[in-house]
């Protein structure tokens, strides 16, 4: 069916009378593009906070781990699923977990897809990931998904803890997508923009967090990352 269907549909579309394509209007650049580094970070934090996310600013990866310990203790976390992206991997979370009596699962530990899904859906009390970018204009966390960044880590557990290197914060979406989609064939197979916790207002327009994804999104913003 597909070939004849396609030909028929496209045939009709192409045979239709043409109308002039309207010219693109001039649009002033977005406000965030004019911000300096500190203001951009400020805007990012301000947006995250207004979405109900906790944001902790720390100096370096060592402090980030200390903050993570604090968060895990306060929430009574015993089992954590962590990705292996280039922000989280250098922190050696499995080692950190052993010191703090917390079981840390990583994709590497999983026998297969089913095993990973079981941990993500049934075991993990929190998912820990880094980000590829943060976007100031809406407090958005951008994750490129690949073998080191499975999709369910930031999604299935009720709590998402995100480690954001300050130098990865960009002003607007286009600064991210221009780079990621520049060359043919190199675009990430899956890219996610996360803006706040999982929300719904489907019952009586009552807004609440934690519908299907994380109820809490906690951001640890790291000023300086190891070179």
């Amino acid at each position: 069916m597909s070939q004849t269907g396609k030909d028929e549909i496209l045939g009709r579309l192409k045979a239709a009378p043409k109308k002039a394509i309207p010219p693109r209007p001039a649009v002033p650049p977005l406000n965030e593009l004019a911000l300096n580094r500190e203001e951009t970070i400020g805007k990012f934090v301000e947006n995250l906070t207004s979405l109900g996310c906790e944001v902790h600013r720390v100096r370096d990866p060592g402090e980030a781990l200390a903050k993570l310990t604090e968060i895990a203790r306060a929430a009574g976390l015993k089992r954590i699923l962590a990705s292996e992206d280039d922000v989280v991997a250098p922190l050696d979370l499995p080692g950190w977990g052993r010191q703090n009596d917390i079981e840390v699962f990583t994709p590497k530990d999983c026998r297969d897809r089913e095993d990973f899904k079981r941990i993500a859906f049934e075991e993990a009390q929190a998912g820990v990931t880094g980000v590829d970018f943060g976007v100031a204009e809406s407090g958005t966390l951008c994750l490129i998904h690949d073998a080191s960044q499975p999709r369910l880590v930031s999604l299935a557990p009720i709590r998402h803890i995100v480690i954001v290197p300050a130098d990865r914060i960009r002003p607007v979406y286009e600064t991210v997508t221009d780079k990621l989609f520049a060359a043919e064939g190199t675009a990430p197979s899956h890219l996610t923009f996360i803006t706040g916790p999982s929300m719904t207002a489907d019952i009586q327009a009552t807004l609440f967090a934690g519908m299907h994804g994380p109820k809490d999104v906690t951001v640890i913003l790291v000023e300086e990352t190891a070179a």
Partner: protein
Amino acid sequence: MKIKTEQFQATAREELKTRHTRTHLDLVGLLLREKRQATMGLFPDPAAALDLGRTIRAEAVERLPELLEQFERNAAARGAVVTWARDAREANDHILRIAKEHNVRLVTKGKSMVTEETGLNEVLLKNGIEVFETDLGEFIIQLLEKPPYHIVGPALNIPVRQICDLFLDKGIMKEPTLDPVELGHAARIFLRDKFHYVEMGITGVNMAVAETGTIINVENEGNIRLTKSSPRIQVSVMTLEKVVPTMRDAMHMLRLLCRNSTGQLLGSYVSMDTGPHGKGELDGPEELHIVILDNGRSSFYRDTEAREILRCIRCGACMLECPVYGKIGGYPYGWAYSGPMGQVLNPLMLGQERTRDLYRACTFCGACKAVCPAGIDHPRKFLSYRAGDARGDPTYGAKRRPWTERSFMEMFTWATKRRWRWDLGLRSVRPFINRHAREGFIRNMKGPLAGWFKSRDFPGMAPKTFHDGMHKRGK
């Protein structure tokens, strides 16, 4: 899904009696309108941003065949399987075939108006495949077997009491509660198992980017992400107008879509697929199927006026602005698409005969057009459908108006064509009309016009016309 557009008047009458619906609509409308205005105001130049969105959508529709081919080429190059379906049946058969080939027993779905349009769920269920709607609102209306009330909030109108009874009845929870948060939590727990073991995920598509072959979904709950991440097979269904030229265009439309539908800067989750998952990934689809559905759209595309509705991005802003929708809600429109966008689209898809009440339910206030981020002129379309009725234009199956109305209009036209006829007419109807006037106003009238005066007054006719008065003075 059953099409009930013919029952517009009867359903609207019922809905007007539901006080719950009314208060609720007023409140939600007010709240969302305020949030939309606030977020739109964050653009450095909101009018220019709106204008750009409208231009992008207009361009996308005018370049449709070329963009679709480009999209297909790029998506296929990244390993997505793109299929074209001429109608609902072809789309449903194709999806069913994929499911059967993989022995799929359990499907989860992200909210998608297009699969409401094609009635996909019924087909899968009939073939022994379990299907769960996973957007909280869609989940509720699937259990209730009701159509969506609003394209963004499909169950916005259902009272908590009813949801509680429903969840108890269907075994979704054990203890009764009237707390929306607890009801939501019960749904989370129930659907979690489905997400864990789902074998095929079906979603709609908010945008398809021609330049990159990427499909984009926007949501708040995370159910679409789960539907795309957990199973090995992903099927995403798009109607052919979803395509935009570039990723930059998509980003701008994202801003407009989220501001206009929910008053957010961005939905909680925007997920973008360019082909299936990569090597060594533990989750995400091994197979990504994209279905491009026509279902009559390419036929009305030849009509350069009608094709304007293909610019629609399904934000729902027109509904919340519409004074008619604001009183009667989504059910009377009788199909997946309600409010002004449905009033424009449904006659093209279903024919004018069974949708004639839809495009008459309009006050021509123009609020929908004013707010539309896609640049659709809804009222103009309603006028053209009405004109089609008057002419009995067969293009969209318009049937002529009743002979009484036609002969009245013909008489009226005849009477207004000559000055003397008009003057004579005025003089002869004046005593008849003014018989009903009290203190200069006609407040009610018996006979065929009674309905009109139910909610309106009409000034009585002056004893003589302006012209008559002036003539006398001149003499």
